[in-house]
């Protein structure tokens, strides 16, 4: 019993740390991963270095999508490494839990920082090979394979059956259980007898049980703390949580993570926050509460050409009811994945093609996903839905010849979508806010006038978000000199702002009006980090 205390500490430490500190980082690994029983997958894997660890890593990564599995797998891997290391050292009569604890904690750190499971699996596999070789080639006292071993020694040191030869025992030995005779607990009690490990030739050193346990506890605790305090781990988990929440359309969670304060440190959070605010109908009221400096902060549309952009755009255009562009982004996202494809992309392609009624392709992706281990039910859901659904007919030639083409500019795309009758509730807010960010007051006025009812009429047009004009639209209207429908509070504040710009220094203005459209509007678009140069009287 005592011999399992240290491995238990390692297991619990790794499990809790992964669960509390890295859960979504591992979920994201599943999003980026791929495993499928197909000839192309295996052919591609066997063209890479260390294919076996890659395949096992991919297989295990599938389970990371479900909260508790990643912590379990990580903890199991680290504990397995611990047990193998203890067993290997035991063969050389090094009776301690501390060295295995140090090395397994090192493995744990490797797993925690690695972008995929591949590296961790490779280490465990190498350890396994070493362990197996040691079991085959060495006996506990250091004797080589084939040397005669006294039955008593074998029996005492390993618990193996009397009369069994070393190689036979090596094959039958179970991790921890039979090498456990070398473990501290056993060693401690062995102090009493002549057959204790320290009396065997080749014994190096021996520590009391409590030292091993406390030492392991300290090492595991230290590793836990290192991970908890490591900025990279925290940042990665925060980003992962944000991304996972966005994929799950958990907008409250997105907003809980992407707060204005955090967005100041990580501007890449802002597009997610604005997406969530749009979906919650709060974009027009909260846009400038974030440290937005330019239209570039609104999305990843123009300034980025990377995985981050396509990941976001895939979610963005899906919420804007533009599956074509979501699919475009999904395909682009796949090109950044190690396999050129990923579970997340395949799931999104399946759902998007299903949504647009392209059942041929949706069935293909369902078939592909069903070749993985955990997507059977997911694929079946869509397959059954399609069996009772009606696929969409292809468009006419006349339509295809003139259909608008997507641009890299979100505003143009939104306006085209609107013109095409695709009007997601959030799309109008995004158009208005983008126009505010571009300081394009003329177009803002024109579009706001046409959609004003959405905000002012209790009935609206079915997609009304409220009965008052959102704060920043009011501020924009004041800038335009339009006061109709603007609240008294905003009018008064604008009057104050005008007065204060004449008298207060920039720093004070920033403090008082940092969250207003007015200050943004009056700052130089060319020098976004140093706002209000022209107001520095």
């Amino acid at each position: 019993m005592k011999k399992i205390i240290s491995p238990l500490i390692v297991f619990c430490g790794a499990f809790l740390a992964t669960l509390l500190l890295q859960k979504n980082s591992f979920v994201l690994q599943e999003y980026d991963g791929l495993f499928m029983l197909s000839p192309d997958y295996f052919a591609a894997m066997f063209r890479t270095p260390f294919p076996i660890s890659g395949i096992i890593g991919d297989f295990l990564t599938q389970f990371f999508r479900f909260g508790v599995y990643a912590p379990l797998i990580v903890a199991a891997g680290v504990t397995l490494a611990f047990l193998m290391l203890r067993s290997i050292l035991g063969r050389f009569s090094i009776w301690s839990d501390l060295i295995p604890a140090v090395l397994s904690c090192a493995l744990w750190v490797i797993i925690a920082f690695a972008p995929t499971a591949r590296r961790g699996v490779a280490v465990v596999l190498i350890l396994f090979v070493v362990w197996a070789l040691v079991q085959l080639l060495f006996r506990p006292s250091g004797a080589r394979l084939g040397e005669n071993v006294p039955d008593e020694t074998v029996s005492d040191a390993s618990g193996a059956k009397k009369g069994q030869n070393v190689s036979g025992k090596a094959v039958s030995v179970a991790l921890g259980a039979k090498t456990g005779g070398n473990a501290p607990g056993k060693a401690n009690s062995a102090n009493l007898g002549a057959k204790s490990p320290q009396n065997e030739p080749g014994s190096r050193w021996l520590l009391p049980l409590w030292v091993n346990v406390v030492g392991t506890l300290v090492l595991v605790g230290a590793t836990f703390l290192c991970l908890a305090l490591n900025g990279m781990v925290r940042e990665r988990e925060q980003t992962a949580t944000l991304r996972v929440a966005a994929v799950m359309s958990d907008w409250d969670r997105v907003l809980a993570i992407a707060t204005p304060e955090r967005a100041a440190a990580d501007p890449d959070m802002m597009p997610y926050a604005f997406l969530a605010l749009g979906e919650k109908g709060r974009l027009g009221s909260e846009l400038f509460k974030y440290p937005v400096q330019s239209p570039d902060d609104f999305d990843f549309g123009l300034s980025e050409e990377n995985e981050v952009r396509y990941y976001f755009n895939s979610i963005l255009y899906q919420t804007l009811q533009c599956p074509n562009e979501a699919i475009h982004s999904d395909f682009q996202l796949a090109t950044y994945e190690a396999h050129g494809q990923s579970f997340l992309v395949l799931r999104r392609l399946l759902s998007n093609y299903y949504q647009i009624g392209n059942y041929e392709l949706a069935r293909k992706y369902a078939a592909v996903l069903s070749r993985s281990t955990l997507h059977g039910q997911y694929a079946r859901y869509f397959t059954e839905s399609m069996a009772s659904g009606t696929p969409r007919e292809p468009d006419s030639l006349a339509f295809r010849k003139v259909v608008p083409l997507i641009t890299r500019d979100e505003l143009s795309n939104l306006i085209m979508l609107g013109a095409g009758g695709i009007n997601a509730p959030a799309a109008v807010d995004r158009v208005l806010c983008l126009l505010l960010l571009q300081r394009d007051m003329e177009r803002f006025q024109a579009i706001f006038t046409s959609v004003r009812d959405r905000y002012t009429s209790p009935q609206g047009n079915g997609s009304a978000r409220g009965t008052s004009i959102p704060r920043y639209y009011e501020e924009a209207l004041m800038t335009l000199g339009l006061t109709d429908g603007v609240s008294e509070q905003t009018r008064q504040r604008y009057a104050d702002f005008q007065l204060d710009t004449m008298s207060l220094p920039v720093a004070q203005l920033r403090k008082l009006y940092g969250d207003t459209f007015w200050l943004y509007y009056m700052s130089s678009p060319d020098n976004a980090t140093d706002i209000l140069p022209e107001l520095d009287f």
Partner: protein
Amino acid sequence: MKRRVAIVFCLLLAASCGRVQFAPSDAVPEIFPDYVGVTVPETMTDLRFEMADGREMSCKSERVGDTLFFHVRAWEKGSRNGVAYAPFKVYISHDEIPPYIAYRLIEPGYEGWRNMGLYSRELASFKEKPIVLNSATGMGCVNCHNFPGGDPSRMMFHARGQGGGTIFKDGSELRLLNLTTVGPGRQGTYPAWHPSGRYIAYSSNSTQQSFAITGSQQVEVYDHFSDIILLDLQTDSVTTYAPLFNEDEMETFPAWSPEGDILYYCSAPQPENVATSRGDIRYALKAVRFSDGEFVGEPWTVFESDSLSVSFPRVSGRWLLFTASAYGTFPIWHPEADLWLLDMSNGSVRCVDEINSADTESYHSWSADGKWIVFSSRRVDGRYTRLFFSHFDGEGHFTKPFLLPQKDPQQNTLRLTSYNVPEFVNGDPGELTKQVSTLFAQ
């Protein structure tokens, strides 16, 4: 333990005593891939398929003369009984098919890619080998492979990206030539290797990919401009010919006549704004004479239509097979694109209904003797291009096409890449990835 074994044995025995009944059917089975009634070469008779509706099946085949009879039995789902279908025939042609095909495998996505490669496939087996993977070229694009007359010892392909260019294989020698450094400084795109082996005509295209904001055709590709250039492999010089290299027209898709005295190509007037007028751009099939290493005379129009746009002309004897779409220059994204056949002896043109489908047919290639064609089609799922073969009788008729056989028919569904630019090759083109990698490293 013994008792358990005995119980299991008894159960199995009892189960095997019940007779499995197959209701005979006059219908032939609906299978995937659809090999019912197709004509195959002697080397491609190992056809593997499954029931189109996914039912379990068993199959026996027997050969009678030049016909294969396939007897298929399929089990009803969840039942021990099933249906014994009427045998279906597969005809065997004695016309030899080249032993290999070469193609590119690429994700049928959008602007980007990750893994891409040129591959060869032995048609008598299921062996597929990479000729070159883009891992050798810094993950750049490898495309537009071409073999003169299907000769596996000579080959060219483009390897894009930094340090890239056009790679030529001649025997075991490999060299890289950046076409932009010679002649007019234009990159080559679609190649056509002259039958003499000395020249390659290239179109040089400025290509744009665009994405429809809505609708079922999600991608559109068009050229902003294009011209035709001629590379002399003896001197590594690139020359141009004014009628094929001008600002008034977009010339593309060169193809030589078997004798090498005529270059066929597609041409459309250069519009001011290609993006907005893309639906009205139609390419005509034109030709120009070639003699002693030079183009001579004025080009003439071979075929044009105000409702069709021509691409990929390929000549075999008196027959010219081309792809026709409603507009534009990139038919693979056009579901209406079909293969058409022009009889140059009398100028008659027809849509080859017997090989076309409701979905896209696009790139195609003749075998050297003109008895077989391989062509790409999206008929399986509308997106992932697959290769089909058809036998040609030399009198203008094709047989029902058959899908490139796979060891596991599921591979047609599971493969997440498209087959591009299928070309017949008369032997194993070998593997060049290491050599190309060294070339790029230099």
